[in-house]
């Protein structure tokens, strides 16, 4: 891989959820094409997919910014949604406030944040009630 930083940007605006996961799919393709190892690509794909889905189902969409360096892959997903009132609860496996409609589509298992934590080397969440949430996910190469 070259020494320069590769930056990608995606808008995550998805009213009917039908394209949820497209940004993650795009990043997966780019990483694979760059020759990043399948294990690393898998970790990024899982963590970013969960963050992308959260932006869609809990916050009416947002944006994704990705930085790829020879050392790490950093994914920042930000939204202007309601924010997370109780971070500790939100991190519990199985905890979900997803609506019935969203659950019927297969979302809302309450495993998103635990998956992000498990498949990244570093995870930071910056959330403010009524303002939005920014999730930073770092996977070392």
């Amino acid at each position, binding site marked *: 891989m070259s020494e320069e930083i590769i930056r990608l940007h995606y808008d995550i605006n998805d009213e009917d*959820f*039908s*394209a*949820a*996961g*497209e940004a*993650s*799919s795009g990043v*997966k393709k780019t990483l694979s094409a760059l020759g990043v190892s*399948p294990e690393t690509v898998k970790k990024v*794909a*899982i963590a970013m*997919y*969960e963050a992308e*889905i959260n932006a869609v189902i809990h916050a009416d969409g947002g944006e994704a910014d990705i930085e790829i360096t020879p050392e790490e892959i950093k994914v920042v997903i930000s939204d202007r949604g309601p924010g997370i009132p109780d971070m500790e609860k939100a991190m519990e496996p199985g905890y979900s406030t997803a609506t019935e409609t969203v659950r019927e*589509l*297969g*979302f809302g*298992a*309450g*495993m*998103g944040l635990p*998956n992000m934590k*498990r*498949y990244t080397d570093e995870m930071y969440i910056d959330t403010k009630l009524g303002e939005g949430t920014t999730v930073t996910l770092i996977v070392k190469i």
Partner: protein
Amino acid sequence: MTAREVAEKLNMTILTGSGDKEVTGFYTCDLLSWVISHANSGDMWVTVMNNLNILAVASLVDVSCVVIPEGIEAYENLLERAKEKDITLIATNRSAANVIIEASKLIGR
């Protein structure tokens, strides 16, 4: 054995895709967070979910095919988008358990 061969031997219907990926394992669950983190590349994924959101998961995990069991019908737009993405969708009247038991006998895993 490829997804197409498994489908043909078990009299299941290939709705979309080439079916030319090798089936190397099995996974069944309808909660997408479990599938994205626990299914493996090459798996035959059996799910009753028949909406568009299974496609992103199928391609992120790189499953060999998705099987919709129990005679459940795929939504029209699901077929269209699966075709575009060359994802192999298979339909059958068999139950999820039966699909996996019989397919497992075929591929010897």
